[in-house]
């Protein structure tokens, strides 16, 4: 990869000889200038004719005056022409800068939003009782194993001494010594192998029992015997706990598929449970005490703290790992003693692949268009994600201009540079985190061929709107409108001069005949030049419109992407919670005490996941037995939900991998809400992964608040980042019915939009834009259809962002 750091200042004036000016435009310019320059000799001719045709000084003066006025207007038009091209190219540049800087920022922001969820995940999962139990049990067992190791070591020492002093040792003594050495071998590293491996534990049990047998007659034997018995009992219990912890981790991972592995470590940094079955055999018992994420997790002050380990090598994986971690505390208490740690390995490479591809134009082969690149760099400037690894190689320093490597949080920057021998524009944005998540200092860069900015290759299809109407609309910047008016005015002025000139010549009778062709030529030239300029302005206005449409498409894509990603998390939540022991225990043993426990559990969950309005547990007959909002419990108890779609479909689920969700709709669970969005999943006997449901967990997502917040963040802004008046954003379901909106007055929830065909027929992940009229108001509209996220397929919803024309 080669990048020449010859960045040029942005927003410089565009000379007509700038290589970015297209051939057609240069030709255009030359024609206009030639025509206008042609007026000067004509005016001179006119001035000479004045002397020839009249001896009257006043008449001569009148003709000369007309000619001077024509010359002045020609001069002015020449100036305007130069400015016009400059304005044209600057406008394109500014707009692309707005769009692509935003694309660079959106990419890093999407990652940050995602990673914020990960910090919540790890803190929540670390509270799982099974993990704490397992670690406590491990720590206890390790103590027993250590004391056993000490005793055996003593015995072995004594025996070794005897054997070395006494040449005639008995075979039984030699056998005992060998056995002791073998047992000591098992007990290395605090006996971790015995703890994590069933097979090794079995071998160990046989050997230790044989040892007990041999020593049973001796004094040492009697003390050992008791220790061995309790140890074996403890080991049995521990193995069950390790197995259960692994199962729970697997359950989490099958709900939250964006992790490659989840590991639990004891206080010494030994991995005692993990989620990834394939890696389990080689991973359990591995010590990661020297890895930063573990030491940082062990140092966290309370349950609210976490540590994010930037991409680095780990014994757990072969590829660089992004690990979110926190301590596991005694009794799952916020301020409990730290007993171990949990590390969750996020599938960053998978996520980066999705992000790198997003918002990039595709060529005919389905790959990102040539010359377009997207990359993410770490805080040290190394590439950690790249859309083309052959050009921007991961783990190497990104060769982007210096100022792109030293950004402040949230800063956006753009400049021109040579990339791979091609003139390119680079847009960069640095993370400023999302809410309380501060980010890891990463930056996103988008590289675009420079001619794409000034050519028409990457433009949305423009709606069929006449230039005059566009010039009258709010979409076109004032400066372009002013130029348009100035050209119109000059055109008129030249026309008036010509007309008056011809009137004047006519009145001179035959004497005036010589002036006729002069004024004809002035009219012709004036018309030609101004018509060309008007044409160029119309092209500019259409270009502006295309870029506006493109921006709206981008905002709508951002809106649908954000909701997709949010709802993906919800689909993961419901699947995981439905396996919680409090819920199946309450449904299996329907007692008020158990229901209360289930309520408390739901309340704890709801307090951590505030994007839900209520969490509801219904038994197999549709009676509501528990909910997270205790104040509503009595009221909800009276409701039977057996006829509700969310309940019925939840009951039909057969595995813990399944969940159900419908479009937003009116629900009896929320009488004061127009619409509810309910996710549901079946609860299975004993928390089993497969089987019939014995009840349903339903979670009521705070749809309107969350969706509106997202939509509001996707509204277009001007270059000073102020919202543009009259813009609106909304989500529609597959029937085109508005489900949430930023403008309840003009785009109310429940309104069915009669969308243009190309908006209705969008395929998954596609975007489009066009003119749309609602209540007599003309808007330009960008729409994007859900593409889902990972295994969440989406609900065929679309996002729309509109901007009024006037």
């Amino acid at each position: 990869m080669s990048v020449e750091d010859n960045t040029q200042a942005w927003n410089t004036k565009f000379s007509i000889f700038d290589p970015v000016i297209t051939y057609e435009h240069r030709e255009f310019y030359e024609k206009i200038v030639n025509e206008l320059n042609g007026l000067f000799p004509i005016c001179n001719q006119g001035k000479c004719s004045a002397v020839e045709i009249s001896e009257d000084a006043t008449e001569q003066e009148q003709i000369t005056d007309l000619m001077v006025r024509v010359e002045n207007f020609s001069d002015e038009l020449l100036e305007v022409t130069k400015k016009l091209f400059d304005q044209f190219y600057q406008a394109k540049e500014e707009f692309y800068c707005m769009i692509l800087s935003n694309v660079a920022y959106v990419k890093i922001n999407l990652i940050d939003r995602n990673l914020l969820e990960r910090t919540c995940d790890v803190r929540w999962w670390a509270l799982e009782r099974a993990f704490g139990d397992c670690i406590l049990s491990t720590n206890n067992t390790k103590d027993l194993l250590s004391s056993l190791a000490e005793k055996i070591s003593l015995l072995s020492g004594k025996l070794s001494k005897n054997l070395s002093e006494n040449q005639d040792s008995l075979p039984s003594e030699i056998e005992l010594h060998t056995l002791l050495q073998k047992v000591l071998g098992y007990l290395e590293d605090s006996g971790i192998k015995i703890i994590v491996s069933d097979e090794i534990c079995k071998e160990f049990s046989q050997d230790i029992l044989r040892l007990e047998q041999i020593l049973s007659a001796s004094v040492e034997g009697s003390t050992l015997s008791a220790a061995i018995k309790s140890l074996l009992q403890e080991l049995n219990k521990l193995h069950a706990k390790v197995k259960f912890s692994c199962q729970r981790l697997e359950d989490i991972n099958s709900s939250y598929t964006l992790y490659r592995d989840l590991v639990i470590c004891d206080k010494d940094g030994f991995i005692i449970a993990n989620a990834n079955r394939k890696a389990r055999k080689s991973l359990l018992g591995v010590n990661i005490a020297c890895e930063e994420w573990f030491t940082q997790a062990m140092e966290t002050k309370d349950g609210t703290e976490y540590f994010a380990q930037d991409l680095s090598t780990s014994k757990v994986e072969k590829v660089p790992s992004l690990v979110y971690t926190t301590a596991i505390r005694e009794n799952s208490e916020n301020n409990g003693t730290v007993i171990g740690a949990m590390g969750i390995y996020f599938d960053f490479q998978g996520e980066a692949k999705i992000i790198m591809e997003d918002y990039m134009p595709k060529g005919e082969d389905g790959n990102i268009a040539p010359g377009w690149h997207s990359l993410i760099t770490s805080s040290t400037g190394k590439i950690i994600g790249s859309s083309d690894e052959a050009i921007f190689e991961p783990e190497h320093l990104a060769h982007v201009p210096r100022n792109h490597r030293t950004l402040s949080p949230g800063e956006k920057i753009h400049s021109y540079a040579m990339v791979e021998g091609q003139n390119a524009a680079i847009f960069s944005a640095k993370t400023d985190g999302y809410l309380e998540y501060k980010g890891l200092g990463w930056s996103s860069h988008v590289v675009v061929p420079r001619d794409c900015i000034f050519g028409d290759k990457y433009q949305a299809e423009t709606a069929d709107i006449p230039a005059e109407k566009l010039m009258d609309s709010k979409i076109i910047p004032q400066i372009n409108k002013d130029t348009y008016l100035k050209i119109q005015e000059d055109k008129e002025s030249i026309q008036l001069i010509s007309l008056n000139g011809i009137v004047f010549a006519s009145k001179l009778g035959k004497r005036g005949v010589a002036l006729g062709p002069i004024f004809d030529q002035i009219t012709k030239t004036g018309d030609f030049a101004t018509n060309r300029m008007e044409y160029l302005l119309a092209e500019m206005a259409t270009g502006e419109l295309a870029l506006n449409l493109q921006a709206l498409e981008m905002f709508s894509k951002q809106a649908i992407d954000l909701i997709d990603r949010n709802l993906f998390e919800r689909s993961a939540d419901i699947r995981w919670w439905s396996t919680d022991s409090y819920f199946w225990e309450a449904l299996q043993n329907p007692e008020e005490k158990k229901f209360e426990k289930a309520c408390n559990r739901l309340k704890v969950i709801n307090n951590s996941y505030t994007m839900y309005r209520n969490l509801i547990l219904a038994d197999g007959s549709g009676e509501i037995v528990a909910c997270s909002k205790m104040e509503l419990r009595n009221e909800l108890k009276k409701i039977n939900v057996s006829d509700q779609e969310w309940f019925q479909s939840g009951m039909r689920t057969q595995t813990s991998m399944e969940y159900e969700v419908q479009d937003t709709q009116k629900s009896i669970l929320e009488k004061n809400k127009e619409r509810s969005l309910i996710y549901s999943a079946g609860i299975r006997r004993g928390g089993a992964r497969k089987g019939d449901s014995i009840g349903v967990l339903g979670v009521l997502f705070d749809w309107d608040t969350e969706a509106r917040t997202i939509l509001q963040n996707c509204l277009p802004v001007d270059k000073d980042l102020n919202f543009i008046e009259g813009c609106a954003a909304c989500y529609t379901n597959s029937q085109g019915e508005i489900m949430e909106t930023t403008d309840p007055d003009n785009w109310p929830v429940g309104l069915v939009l009669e969308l243009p065909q190309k908006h209705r027929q969008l395929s998954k992940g596609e975007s489009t834009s066009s003119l749309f009229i609602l209540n007599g108001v003309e808007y330009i509209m960008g729409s994007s259809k859900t593409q889902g996220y990972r295994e969440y397929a989406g609900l065929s919803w679309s996002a729309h962002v509109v901007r009024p024309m006037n």
Partner: protein
Amino acid sequence: MQIASFRVADGLYGVPVLIVEEFFRPIPVTNIPLTDSRIEGLVHHRGKTATVLDLRSCLDKPAVQVKTNSKMILLETNAELTPDALKLGIESGEEPVVLRVDRTESIINAEEKYIKPRPAHIPYDFVEGVFRLQHSENYLMLLNIATLVKTILQSTGSGVE
């Protein structure tokens, strides 16, 4: 004959070039109360005070709120007409008059023999004749200023010195 053409609403109209004193951009008009609605008011231009006739009103076309491109045409009075104009039988009014038009067009050369009398369906006396434009299906309606001025100014009894 040279005809100065202009547009009013969707129609193309014209007056002889020799009756035109000057084409100019609109200037502020002083309204005169209680006059014919076809009279927009008075303007002061080139040292003369002239009555502004709104051709849209004269032709019973709906008024437009924003007259962005509209132009004014100052006409010669009878006393100012050149001998060439008089030879052609061109007549104007006695007082300075300005026509308000929607847009000025070009100067057209029309041979008199091609100017046809006003068709019966055109109800305005001040339309003197029609002329078919070369290479076009469009017709230009030639206005008779003397008749127009007489119709309007005499019906109101106004006149400006």
